[in-house]
């Protein structure tokens, strides 16, 4: 009657058992399975969920003093299926819950509006959780650089922008939204 380790179930013969090639095969395969379990854990730690989407061309038009959800055209990186630009080009949908460092940034082109302030918001399921506003210098630029968010699977992360000034609409030449998990629940 073979024995078995308590956690990973590696089978080994006990005293009096017949030891043939099948016993060695089970033993070897079980050890490989155990090592693969360890490999998977290490790979998971080294590749924590992270995604970034950005948009540059075409530009996104935003009218004056109106909070507007930013949209993206390019998936820069995504190892947890958080981005799906073909279906929803304005968001990252969290797949694995945990603590994330998130960020967003926006920049406008010059010449279409005179911008006196530029704001970028991070929203979770439609509620603003971080907001940053900067003065404009003809053009506008604002960013939220890596803030922590306690996110659950299914949460929708988006970024909004708003500008004040004259003229317009303003054309957003660069948009970016990022989320990277740093700790598990």
């Amino acid at each position: 009657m073979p024995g078995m380790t308590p956690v990973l179930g590696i089978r080994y013969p006990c005293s009096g058992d017949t030891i043939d090639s099948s016993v060695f095969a089970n033993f070897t395969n079980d050890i490989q399975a155990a090592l693969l379990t360890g490999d998977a854990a290490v790979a998971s730690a080294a590749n924590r969920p992270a995604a970034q989407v950005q948009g540059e061309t075409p530009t996104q038009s935003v009218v004056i003093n109106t909070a507007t959800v930013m949209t993206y055209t390019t998936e820069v990186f995504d190892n947890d299926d958080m981005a799906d630009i073909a279906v929803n080009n304005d968001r990252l949908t969290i797949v694995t819950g945990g603590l994330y460092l998130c960020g967003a940034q926006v920049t406008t082109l010059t010449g279409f509006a005179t911008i006196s302030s530029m704001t970028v918001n991070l929203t979770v399921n439609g509620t603003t959780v971080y907001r940053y506003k900067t003065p404009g210098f003809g053009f506008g630029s604002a960013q939220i650089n890596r803030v922590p968010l306690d996110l659950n699977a299914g949460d929708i992360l988006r970024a909004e922008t708003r500008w004040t000034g004259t003229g317009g609409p303003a054309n957003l030449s660069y948009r970016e939204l990022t989320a990277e998990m740093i700790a598990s629940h």
Partner: protein
Amino acid sequence: MRFTTNHDIPCLENEDYAGFALYMQCLAEQVEARVVADQAAVTTFLERPVAIWTQSTVLAAGSSTTGPLGTPTTTYRWIPGVNNGTLNIRGFWHIGVYSNALSSAPVVGNHRTAMLYVWQPEATFQDINALDTDAAVAVLQDATWESNTTNGEDLLSSMVVYNPGTPLRTETEIGMQFIFGLATEAAGVENVTFTSTIWAAYLGDTPNIALGS
């Protein structure tokens, strides 16, 4: 039976043929122990301490406030130590502050400042009360300009700090304190509500470095 020098992995010798069963049991148990230990290390790596505090404070014109951070509103395996604002594990921390300042009236001519201080421990550090507050260093500072009665104005800053520990104490504490103020340049009397988020997330220790030979 012999054992390897580094990991004590058993190895049969010629006279151990009858000990196959015992050999395989020993090897299986050792492989399991190593893999389980590695899994635990990975779990520890992912389950790092994090604390997030939220506050809401109303300030009158020309005033400022400081104080303990109090109890975190969100924690991940946080080790509060003596004071909830202490970073009591050696290594790198990502710390930051976000504050939205919302005016009760559209009075212009004021600005807001937020600072996050990190205290260095004294050489004879015993507890939080012995921290050398004279040596407090503002590691983060941000300021914003005029009032806003609709969405408020925002302060946001973050950085990575390192808690060096000491040769005798690998878990030495450094303290964190949030200070924000409202300076009024005009004769305004409006109140400003500061809604703030402060955080500290442990990123990891530094590898041991041996100097000399």
